[in-house]
């Protein structure tokens, strides 16, 4: 009993402060989270629009659950990109996985028959500024445009301008380059398989 009394004598301020500060953060988060979520949706739409410039609007197609390389379940939302005439001009989905510093969230776009990549964009990442955050730059991103929508391979040297399944890593940011490739490789195969099973895309195209 005296030990408990001593414990509270020493730490009552810490306990009360933790409770008050936690409450303050919870209230702030509750007040601003709808706006933060809306900002994320706007950004996703903007990025998808950049990857599929022919798209006029994006229609939610389905939500799938995929397994990351480390066995963690990740939810991926698939959007159908529709042109002015209402034709499907591609598909885009969000995915994520571990990066060098923190989780990397990506939006990946493929053509309408899931044959080639239309590119990827970074939705959120905390990769090292000046090094790992180069995954956002055109040098690395452009290598994915028109590459076959299948497993890609990371190489340290090669021709970055050639459209092939070989992606040349960013110098000084191999871990981040690998992380992006692993996220894309992992999600593209699983999403393609699940969409084929659901009949959302067909094999014959």
């Amino acid at each position, binding site marked *: 009993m005296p030990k408990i009394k001593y414990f509270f004598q*020493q*730490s009552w*301020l*810490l306990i009360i*402060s*933790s409770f008050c*500060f936690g409450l*303050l*953060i919870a209230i*702030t*988060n509750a007040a*601003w989270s709808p*706006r*933060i979520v809306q*900002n994320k949706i706007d*950004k996703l739409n903007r990025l998808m629009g950049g990857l599929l410039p022919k798209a006029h609007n994006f229609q939610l197609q389905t939500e799938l659950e995929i397994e990351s390389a480390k066995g963690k379940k990740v939810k991926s939302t698939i959007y159908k990109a529709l042109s002015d005439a209402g034709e499907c001009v591609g598909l885009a989905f969000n995915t994520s996985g571990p990066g060098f*510093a*923190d989780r990397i969230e990506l939006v990946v776009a493929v053509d309408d028959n899931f044959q080639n990549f239309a590119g990827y964009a970074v939705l959120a990442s*905390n990769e090292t*500024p*000046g090094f790992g*955050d180069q995954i956002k730059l055109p040098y690395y991103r452009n290598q994915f445009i028109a590459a076959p929508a299948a497993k890609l391979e990371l190489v340290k040297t090669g021709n970055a301008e050639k459209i092939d399944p070989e992606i040349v890593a960013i110098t000084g940011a191999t871990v981040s380059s690998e992380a992006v490739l692993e996220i894309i490789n992992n999600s593209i195969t699983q999403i393609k398989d699940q969409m084929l099973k659901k009949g959302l895309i067909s094999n014959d195209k």
Partner: protein
Amino acid sequence: MTNEPQATSVLYKQTLIAGLWRENPVFRLLLGMCPTLAVTAAVKPALTMGLSVIFVLFCSNIVVSLMRNLLKPHLRILMFTLTISTFVTIADLFLKAFQPRMSEILGPYVPLIIVNCIIICRAEACASKNPLLTSIIDAIGMGIGFTLTLCVLAGIREILSTGAVWEIPILPAAFVPWTAMRMPVGAFLTLGLLLGLVNAITKRKA
């Protein structure tokens, strides 16, 4: 007795201006080097970082000053960190909600304010030992000093790396941008030169 309010007023004034020059956190105390080097490639993110630090410093100094008589010596750093992290989280949420572009540019450097030495230093050196008003004035002085320093550094780097300030072009089109100024080397170079300049001015004054 009649001189007491005047002395207090002088003390407040000295506390306020200390952060601007005599005890400038960056140029004189060499504190908060991480954001100083990392977010000063342009004026907009530097100003956002400065304002975030002012907010956190202001709020944490108020809380620490109010609870200074209740603080247990061995738990004080824990209390400072808890207080600072609360306000940093609020600042981070605010930027994500109302300034998403800036939040994206600043990235991990906003949450890193939690371990910014300036804030812990002011909590320990000033707020935990002084009454509320002195702590508030100290926070404002130090915060403005830090923000101005970041903006000066960012202004120089932005002009030389893009020919513009606040994204408004000010140098002639013929100007060849110094790309290196946007990179870490530019931050170290500019900071080093400014520190040398401040030292030279201080020595001349002395």
